[in-house]
């Protein structure tokens, strides 16, 4: 099999690889030790392997490594800066949104994209549910996941995202 050269940025570092064109980005990232990229379905159903590619949450199990050429990739490992976990990660810890943890890195990355997309805006629970619909979790019933997202976005302190205040973008 001919190997294909690619260049991409992973968690802030410029990297070059020779990849088998059949390799998924999931396989490539895991081979580099990025254990946050979890395989749970291998066909794009569950979101456990989500990373941000140029800021967009992507299921890496159905994204070929060669497509990552020229792209900027962020995974949960890279959200730790100077030994401090990101505010989204901290919110997942503080709200009890973590149980078995297998879906957690993917949820953290989708939430990170959501926070960046809606910066400065109030968010309702319905919007949060819509944005996170691609990440399956079997442990939490998603209740505390929503708490974690609410704690990460720029809602007024104490806002429970139930709407009715007229400030949410989607109301």
């Amino acid at each position: 099999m001919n190997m294909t050269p690619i260049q991409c940025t992973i968690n802030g570092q410029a990297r070059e690889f020779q990849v088998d064109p059949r390799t998924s980005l999931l396989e490539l990232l895991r081979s580099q030790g990025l254990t946050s990229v979890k395989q749970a379905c291998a066909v794009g159903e569950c979101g456990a392997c989500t990373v941000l590619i140029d800021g967009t949450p992507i299921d890496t199990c159905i994204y070929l490594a060669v497509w990552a050429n020229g792209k900027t990739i962020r995974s949960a490992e890279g959200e730790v800066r100077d030994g401090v976990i990101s505010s989204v990660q901290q919110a997942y810890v503080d709200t009890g949104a973590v149980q078995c943890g297998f879906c957690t890195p993917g949820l953290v990355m989708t939430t990170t994209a959501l926070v960046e997309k809606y910066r400065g805006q109030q968010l309702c629970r319905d919007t949060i549910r819509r944005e996170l619909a691609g990440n399956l979790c079997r442990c939490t019933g998603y209740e505390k996941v929503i708490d974690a997202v609410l704690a990460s976005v720029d809602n007024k302190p104490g806002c429970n995202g139930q709407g009715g205040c007229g400030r949410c973008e989607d109301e």
Partner: protein
Amino acid sequence: MSLGSSSNRVDAQAKVTGKARYTDDFTMLGMRFAKYVRSPIAHGKVKRIDISKAQTYPGVDAVFTYDDVPEFIFPTAGHAHSLDPNKLDVADRYLLTDHVRHQGDAVAIVVACNQLTAERAVELVEVDYEELPVMTTADQALAEGAYPLHPGGNVLKQQAIATGDLEQAFAESDFVLEGAYHTPIHQHCHMETVVSYAYMEKDDHIIIVSSTQIPHIVRRVVGISLGIPWSHVRVIKPYLGGGFGCKQDVLEEPMCAFLTMKLGGIPVKIELTREECFTASRTRHSFDIKGKIGVSRDGVIKAYALDVKSNTGGYASHGHSIAAAAANKIPYIYPRLVFGYKALTFYSNLPNAGAMRGYGAPQATFALESLVEEAAQKLGMDPVDFRLKNVAQLGDFNPVNKKEIKSCGITECLTRGREMFEWDKRRAACVEHKGPIRRGVGVACFSYGSNTYPACVEVSGARLVMNQDGTVNLQVSATEIGQGSDTVFAQMAADVLCIPDTWVRTISTQDTDISPFDPGAFASRQSYTVGPAILEAATLLKEKIVAHAALMSGQPARNLSIRDGKVVYGSRPDYVLYEMREVSMDAYYNQDQGQPFFAESSHKTRTNPPSFGCTFVEVEVDMPLCKVTIKDILNLHDSGRILNPQLAEGQVHGGMGMAIGGALFEEMLIDAKTGIVLNDNLLDYKFPTILDLPDLHCSFVETHEPQSAFGNKSLGEPPIISPGPALRNAIWMAAGVRIDELPITPKRLYEHLARAGLI
């Protein structure tokens, strides 16, 4: 005090960064990968198998068939061993078989240098089957002359219990009501699939790393399956990505062990695909239940009886234990009556059913709480009032095992729930909705056990070692599978030792060569059964610390105590004698006295108190669209003392979410004629996404269970039990149809509404 507070999970940081390593995150030099040759049909015998092309495919190390595996027949259920041969789990499996009993049953296995090569080689194995009659239902499997799936026939086991004269109790009832109920096959869908690998460094030592809830049981069963001493097997369990009972079974570990043995000890990994998890791991037993309830005019339940048929699929796995356990767990809720329970578990050509969260109780409670609702309606009583009249009270006795109820919060769960939920107001308002959009409210109760005693021996162990800096390592073989047990164990040890919980490091990895004996995570047992072991070990460790501080200071030990991690005077706790690290350093390194502090304990639990709770739910039913929307749902739980409120809420939310899925969407669809699974993936098997669930509410009625080391009772499984029947009852009120089979999908709702002439 740490217990009672919402300390953060000890593993949360490792999990949010992705650094927590699960079984698939480990790799070894030279690791090989194995893939099964699986049956495409649900029942047949292999007529011919040709592995020659696969054997010579480049990159293939070996191919094994049913002819090559050990002759030891073995059980797989994750139960403690029993010294009573009559209580041993049913042994009905070999590693591979030429008699395939369900779709996905394994006839051969290929070991290769990578997954892709193994998959290619599997396709090169030629197998011809003689097709045999496929039996998917009780009627087929139990018919006279039905093809026996195992030498003993298709009846795995049956039982009948009556705690009094049932006939008389029904005869004395003013009303006797009957119903027939069906619960579907669910799959656990733990996000981490089933994965194991094994290797050997010495001929008499197989090391297995596995995604299991039950490392010590796996060790025993691997020993049985390969005919080797149990001590020759070492099982290591890293972080686990959910189990929900599926991994309370011995799954791929015996095969991994067999393969590494055959291949000179090289590491061999088996990782099931999501699709294989559906057809070839475990599922929830489908129950068909005939129920009967007798009540007096004044609202007292005189008796109820359930007649259960439980479909275990091609192999026993937990087999009849599921149906039998329901009879131990449910009678607590309405104890002042005659209880009747008949159950029969049978083999069929469905995928193998095993343990799943709730272990038979969700199925049996669906029937019971539907019957109770029928009775309340018949009597014209408010469903909450009717239940309040009949639920357990402190001092009642379980009618089956005669055990006294020593903590009981179900009455308060119902009364507080009625208030919080505004039940009376909502119920009255529902009647106003007469158009195409209807409303209804529903309630249902449950009881559950706190471990497996006396069905199984209940052993647990704890080992504490104090480090030089005064922090403590805690080892248990109870397994963290997502529920938060590692955190609660640290909190328990910290409170007994009077140190901050951040000083306790629970060793999350179990290793059967090292970790103290404990069978693992099931039956919502761990906080209850490990509690006493931690209490004993930590008490002993504390005594050793104080004794050494007495030696150092010349003060009598009785004058000393520990507070906030410091050794203090008992009478003047603000006067600090030593920091903990000073005492520990002296114990380690003083040349003449003391020794490093450690303590361990093993404890057998001989009590098993019930937890209680209930669900209140309001639904909206769009009649033309046959669509059910949950407007509000509330679970209330008496789980004794709540050790960590945030983790406890997480367990309740997760159980409610899984229950809602099970009641409204989830069902393994299996073709009745061929036994072929039609939805073996996460796209077609509808477990709830975040869009499918409503906001989930819960509340705890805290009691103190006197038999419990820390006052707590079970919590992990109970939240899944009552939402199903509560939803059924609410939909009945809203839409006017009783739907006695789950899940209540739009299709099923349409069928019932059409039959009733309502649309």
